[in-house]
């Protein structure tokens, strides 16, 4: 299963690197532009469950890494095969300055809130996303808070600890 998938992927796409670190995991690294095509291909192969879109800030390499984690639903009602145990992590790295990426809502409709969240917490702009409005945050932050150079402890000291206590003023 895994090896045939690997061969298929390698035969179809050129600029990708494939690693199989353990029995049930395939890690595919691709260029930015290739990602939608690979996602579409994998979806047609039966990996139809986009479990998660995540981002990792590799500050030392000066890049942000997007991870698409794909697993598969069952084909029938109750047949469990090796396919369901498998998960694919599709990675692509984008620069930290003015990061942008093409939205994948057209392929996986459930990508919408994940992309919104990543836009908010990592500052990656998803082109073509219909609704990049704030999802979780209320305050505005200079640096998106999940980037590694955003120091939450420093931020707390600078913002919340500076607000004076009313009870002390009273006395």
């Amino acid at each position: 299963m895994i090896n045939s998938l690997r061969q298929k992927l390698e035969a179809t796409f050129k600029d990708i690197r494939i690693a199989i670190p353990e029995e049930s995991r395939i890690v595919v690294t691709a260029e930015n532009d290739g990602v939608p095509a690979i996602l579409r291909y994998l979806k047609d192969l039966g990996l139809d469950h986009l479990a998660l879109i995540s981002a990792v800030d590799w500050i030392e390499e000066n890049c942000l890494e997007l991870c698409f984690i794909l697993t598969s639903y069952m084909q029938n009602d109750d047949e469990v095969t090796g396919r369901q145990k498998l998960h694919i992590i599709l990675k692509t790295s984008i620069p930290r300055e003015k990061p942008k990426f093409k939205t994948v809502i057209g392929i996986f409709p459930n990508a919408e809130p994940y992309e919104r969240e990543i836009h908010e917490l990592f500052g990656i702009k998803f082109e073509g996303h219909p609704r990049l409005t704030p999802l979780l945050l209320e305050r505005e932050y200079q640096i998106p808070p999940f980037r590694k150079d955003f120091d939450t402890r420093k931020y707390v000291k600078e913002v919340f600890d500076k607000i004076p206590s009313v009870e002390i003023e009273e006395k």
Partner: protein
Amino acid sequence: MRELELYFGPQHLGMVGNFSITLKVEGDRVLEARANPGYLHRGFEKLMEYRTWMQNFPMVCRINVVEPDSMEMIYAMAVEKLANIQVPERANYVRSIYLELARVGSHLFGLWAYANMLGFDTVAQWAMYHRDLVLDLFEELTGGRVYHIYIWPGGVRRDFPPGFEDKVVNTLHSIGGCVPDYDATFFNNRLFYERANGIGKISREQAKQWGATGQTLRATGMKFDIRKVEPYAAYDKVDWDVPVRENGDAYSRVWVIRDEMIESVHMIFKLLDAMPEGPVYNRVPNPFKWKIPKGEAYVRCESSRGELGLYMVSSGGDKPYRVHFRTPSYPNGLILLEKLLKNASIADVGNIMISLYVVAPEIDR
């Protein structure tokens, strides 16, 4: 009729959890619904990057207050996978029993919320009382009522106290004795059927497209359960079945929850019978100096609401480099809810929301 903007939550008696839905309504009909999360955002995944591997255990369980135990489990699973720690056989059984107890408690909470939403005060109060009996078991086992911090990398924190198995059996029997009452007043109630049948209906294709898991998917007939698909703990050691329904509406979802609760209880009995003797944890390195080799892992388990995943990256340090939880309420609350609320009646807003089992802190994290 004029269009009104109606805020459903966060301060609302029908809202379980700090969550809000902005509705555009015309008369009694919802034209458009916008989920508005973020009231509970604490930046867990950021905070966890600042704490050591062991310090994160009290953090993870607080992500989901209704069922903290599956959160502990998934974090322990990820750490064990990254650090390559083995778990003793007995600990696997203890973990399974513990997680199933948590599932029963969580489903009873869900039953409370659902019954309360429909105005079934009586059933709601019974369910909450029975959940409290389960919490008493947790209190005896772990010392905490709500947050237990019981699952540890390499096993569980301590073995069952003497006589605990009997208490579990007795409590579950006394809850099980009330199932006919629940059936008569709630599940088989004609009015409940009228209220829930055909509400929030989705097909299997839609469920797959929108990333649903758990009851939402199982109510459309697919036996998709991570405990079967990718067994962890001791779920592959005993024989059990995944309850499903065909219709995909709120009625089916609630019935799946009920059947799951009963299945969990049976599973606990089987696990208790099959449980081997032995130690319950393997020693882990000194937590203050514990460094985990560079690597990444995606693990998943079945929480009471669906597929719970954790993507964790270690850069070889004493702290995680990045953690990201894939929570089942996330697609349910942000995608399915908005789609299903369109053209629903206002009376069904809470009905649909709770039947999707949306737990707000899971979405916000």
